C-alpha cells in the first residue's frame, strides 16, 4: 500500500511517500495510523496526536473507521490551511 505524507507530517517523518506491506489485521484507517507509529520514532512522534492527523483514501477525506483495501492510495496530513 502506498502512503503519502504532506506538510509537517512529511517533514517530521522525513519522506513524502512510502510503500508498506500491511499486516492482515490492519483493516481500517485508525488501525493503519496506529501501526505506522510503530515503524520508527519519527513516525511515532509525527502521528502522536490523532486530532491533527487527517486521512484521505483515494483522494477523499475519510474518518478513522473507514475500511482499507490493499490497492488504496492513502494520504496523511495535518488540517488543511489553503484559501
Amino acid at each position, binding site marked *: 500500500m502506498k502512503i503519502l505524507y504532506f506538510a*509537517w507530517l512529511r517533514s517530521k517523518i522525513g519522506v513524502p511517500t512510502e510503500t508498506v506491506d500491511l499486516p492482515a489485521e490492519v483493516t481500517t484507517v485508525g488501525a493503519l495510523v496506529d501501526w505506522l507509529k510503530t515503524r520508527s520514532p519519527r513516525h511515532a512522534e509525527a502521528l502522536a496526536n490523532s486530532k491533527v492527523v487527517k486521512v484521505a483514501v483515494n*483522494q*477523499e*477525506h475519510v474518518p478513522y473507521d473507514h475500511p482499507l483495501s490493499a490497492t488504496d492510495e492513502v494520504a496523511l496530513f*495535518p488540517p*488543511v490551511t*489553503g*484559501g
Partner: protein
Amino acid sequence: MTIRVQAEDFDVGAEYTAFTAGRTSIGGVTLFVGLVRDIAGGEAVSAMTLEHYPGMTERQLEAIEAEARRRWPLDDVLVIHRYGRLEPGDQIVLVATASAHRDAAFDSCRFLIDWLKTKAPFWKLEATPDGERWVEAKDSDDAAAARWAE
C-alpha cells in the same frame, strides 16, 4: 464552471471579462481574491509556500463547486488556487460566482471559500524572522465552514 490549480499568477480582470463575456442573464457577480499578507499572528512574513496534494486538490474543488451549484442557481463558477512560493501582496486564490440574483452570488462565493479553506488539501508554510513555520488551521475557519451545514 472552471477549476484551476496552478503555480502561475492569474489576472483578475481577464478572468472577470472571460467569465461574463456575451452573457445577459447575470444580475450579479461576486469575486473574492485572497492575498498573502506581510503579517500573520503578529509576526512579519517574508514569503509563503503553498504545498498541495495534486489530484486530490482538483477532486475536492470540483466536489465543492458541484455542491455550490446544487445549492444555488448559478450561471457560472470559477475557482483558481495557486501553489508554490508566494510573497506578500501576491494573489493566492480567486473565487467568482455569477447568478441572476446577488444573494446567490454572495452566498455561493462565501460558501466556496469557506469550504475550500477546510476541505481543499493545501498547506501554508510561512517564512518569518524566526524561521519557517507551518500555518495552523484556525477554529474560525471550521466555524465558518460549519455555517453552511445543511
